[in-house]
């Protein structure tokens, strides 16, 4: 086989969720392939299957000539308490015996010099002491190191490798990618910066909804076409139609509640529902947490609905009622003490209003299904005396029926004067917003009003051209 790796009709399911729906992909030595797609298109799953992190559910994965496959991760995979040489040792078993440190240091320093001349990284510095850009350089250089006595380097997968690199380092990196490919290394490049894809790729693969929807030489797939292919028009699923959202009336003179600086400054007024979107991990969540913990804009109480329920929301020791009332304890206090009767009545009222399916409010929250846990967290925020409610991608793992109910609740609350800031990457959810701010690299870069909202518009703003 003259391919480095070939996937044939590969599918991957996580429980009921189908992350890959039959992908064919192959790459030859010395080839550079750009892999593009929106959130949830299946890029990460495909990378994990090529790396052997988990096996495919169906289909075949064939490896060609012997050689290592390495991956540069978007979330860097370095140990921050070690220096560059020690981190290099982690992936090279052959670096052992006397003098391993010297050899490891020579190996990584040589590669850093080759890729990023003038990088200025002190070889003995712990990674935690380096700025994020230099860490990313170490991560990239490490992936391209080859040790004697080990197999040659066959392929490197680069997942958003330049997000922390400066302009000069990025150009150096792109030049090195061409050089490595010239030496026979296969390269897969995943990035939201389309110009980088065009700068080095021979071929582009577009993924969408777990499939590769287009593939061709870079020259034959212009940027506009890519954006169109990544977004496209999802085929509506019968029976799952959510009724078209009626446009809301918002008051342009209402007091401003939330502001954030940026190329396109964020502004949310009383009664607004605004959306944050863009590719996952581009600063939307950080912006929400900053609003919640430090405040941005008007001095008003905020309530937060966590999307990562276990990490950010659930109090696992407690009952549903206790979880529900934690943000509004003042309202169930009678004198100095909390009133169990008032707490019960309050929890029952919200159970009714949000339609939480449970046995009784004293059962542990962790016994509920994910969707119902999410409803409790919703109720917690809505019950809080806070004029601003922040939603951190709150519909993860929530069923269609629940979603429709929650959408309605949010709209009612907004009509009653509450302000919602809603981070989501799903178009269907964003359609409930009056306008949507697209984030890229940590800051809002575009504002799309409800009337102009489409997947294409979001993708065009998410990917830097």
């Amino acid at each position, binding site marked *: 086989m003259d391919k480095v790796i070939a996937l044939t009709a590969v599918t991957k399911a996580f429980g009921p969720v189908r992350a890959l729906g039959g992908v064919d992909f192959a790459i030859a030595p010395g080839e550079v392939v750009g892999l593009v797609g929106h959130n949830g298109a299946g890029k990460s799953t495909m990378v994990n299957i090529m790396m052997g992190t988990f096996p495919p559910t169906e289909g075949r994965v064939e490896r060609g000539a012997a050689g290592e496959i390495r991956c540069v991760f978007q979330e860097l995979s370095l140990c921050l308490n070690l220096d560059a040489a020690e981190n290099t040792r982690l992936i090279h078993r052959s670096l052992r015996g006397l003098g391993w440190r010297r050899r490891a240091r020579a190996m990584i320093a040589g590669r850093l010099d080759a890729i990023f001349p003038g990088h200025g990284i002190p070889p003995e510095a712990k990674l935690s002491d380096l700025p994020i850009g230099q860490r990313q350089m170490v991560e990239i250089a490490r992936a391209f190191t080859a040790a004697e006595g080990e197999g040659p380097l066959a392929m490197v997968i680069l997942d958003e490798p330049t997000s922390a690199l400066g302009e000069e380092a990025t150009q150096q990196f792109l030049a090195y990618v061409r050089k490595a490919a010239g030496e026979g290394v296969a390269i897969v490049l995943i990035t939201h910066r389309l110009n980088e894809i065009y700068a080095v790729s021979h071929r582009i693969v577009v993924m969408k909804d777990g499939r590769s929807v287009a593939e061709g030489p870079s020259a034959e797939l212009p940027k506009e076409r890519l954006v169109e292919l990544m977004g496209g028009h999802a085929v509506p699923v019968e029976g799952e139609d959510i009724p078209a959202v009626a446009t809301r009336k918002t008051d342009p003179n209402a007091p401003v509640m939330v502001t954030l600086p940026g190329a396109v400054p964020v502004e949310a007024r009383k009664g607004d529902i605004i959306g944050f979107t863009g590719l996952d991990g581009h600063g939307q969540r950080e912006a929400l*947490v900053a609003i*919640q*913990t430090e405040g941005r804009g008007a001095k008003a*109480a*905020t*309530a*937060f609905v*966590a999307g990562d329920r*276990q*990490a*950010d*929301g*659930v*109090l*696992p*020791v*407690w009952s549903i009622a*206790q979880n529900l009332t*934690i*943000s509004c*304890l*003042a309202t169930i*206090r009678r004198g*100095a*003490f*909390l009133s*169990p009767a008032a707490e019960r009545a309050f929890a029952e009222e919200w159970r009714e209003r949000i339609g939480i399916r449970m046995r009784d409010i004293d059962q*542990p929250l*962790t*016994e509920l299904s994910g969707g119902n846990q999410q409803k409790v967290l919703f109720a*917690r925020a809505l019950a*809080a005396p*806070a004029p601003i409610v922040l939603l951190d991608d709150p519909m993860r793992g929530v069923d269609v029926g629940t979603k429709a109910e929650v959408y309605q609740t949010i709209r009612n609350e907004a009509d009653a004067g509450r302000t919602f800031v809603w981070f989501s990457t799903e178009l269907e959810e964003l359609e409930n917003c009056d306008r949507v701010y697209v984030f890229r690299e940590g800051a809002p870069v575009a504002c799309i009003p409800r009337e102009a909202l489409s997947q294409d518009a979001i993708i065009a703003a998410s990917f830097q051209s």
Partner: protein
Amino acid sequence: MSVAPARAARRLSLPPSAYGFIAAALLWGGTMLLSDGRGGIEMLSVALSFSIFSVAVGTGQMFVIASGPGNIDLSCPAVITLCAYVSMNLMGGADGMLPVGLIAALVLGGVIGLVNYGLVRALKIPPIIATLAASFVVTSLAMWYGGESTVRPPQALSDFMIWRVGGVQVALILALIGSGVVHLVLHRTVYGRSLLALGQNARAAQLAGIRVGFVRMTAYAVSGMMAGLCGFLLAGFTGGAALNMGEAYLMESVAVAVLGGTSVAGGRASAFGIWGAALFLSLLVTLLNSTGLGAGARYLFTGLTILVVIFFATERRK
């Protein structure tokens, strides 16, 4: 910081706070069998008297441990000693100075608790190190301030500690009432709820709008105050302050809190559970003392017994 979702790996029908009482009952029952039931009530009464001190310092420790994984106050022995010296010296044996001595012990303990939290927070030192380091400083202060001199406690304090009405120790009743108040604070006030939420998941608590820093700071202050109270009462009971008076309470404060149902994973605490654990430990000490074993063997047995009981009583994750 994240909490394992499947905490209910092992669901027990008994609340965690019950285990101290069960262990104490078994130990007492066993002793009664061996001694044909003689002296049972006396033994229990003595054990309860001694429990007051470990309950006081253990209650403070409970606040700190419940505020989240990794939080612990190892400075209590030093605080007990220093507060005992300071309050005894201030009172100088005069009955009229009792309120002054009590307030001094509470305030000094509370201030040391605040310093502990300050070290943890500002210098980002793990609590186990910060409070241990603070305890060395506090111990040095006690040596410098108190040294060998022993000021007798006011007679009224000594009398109060052994005052019995109808055979029941008054200090014991007051201590039980105190635990009742702590129970209410933990479960029926905004502060208590905030503390327990913080202990379960600090990030979730913060995002739910709880002032995480303030709540944890208060927990350390309460721990210092309870250690100060313990030192004040203990000096009154034993006839004055002594440099080694706090020693036993390092292990004991943690043991009674954990055995009494406080989860080291944070977020679970029981004001009354501590009584069972304290009673158990007091009975164990009484029993071992009566066997005539050497100090080494007694320590060995105490340590082993605590290990075994905590092994059975605490919830473990998979």
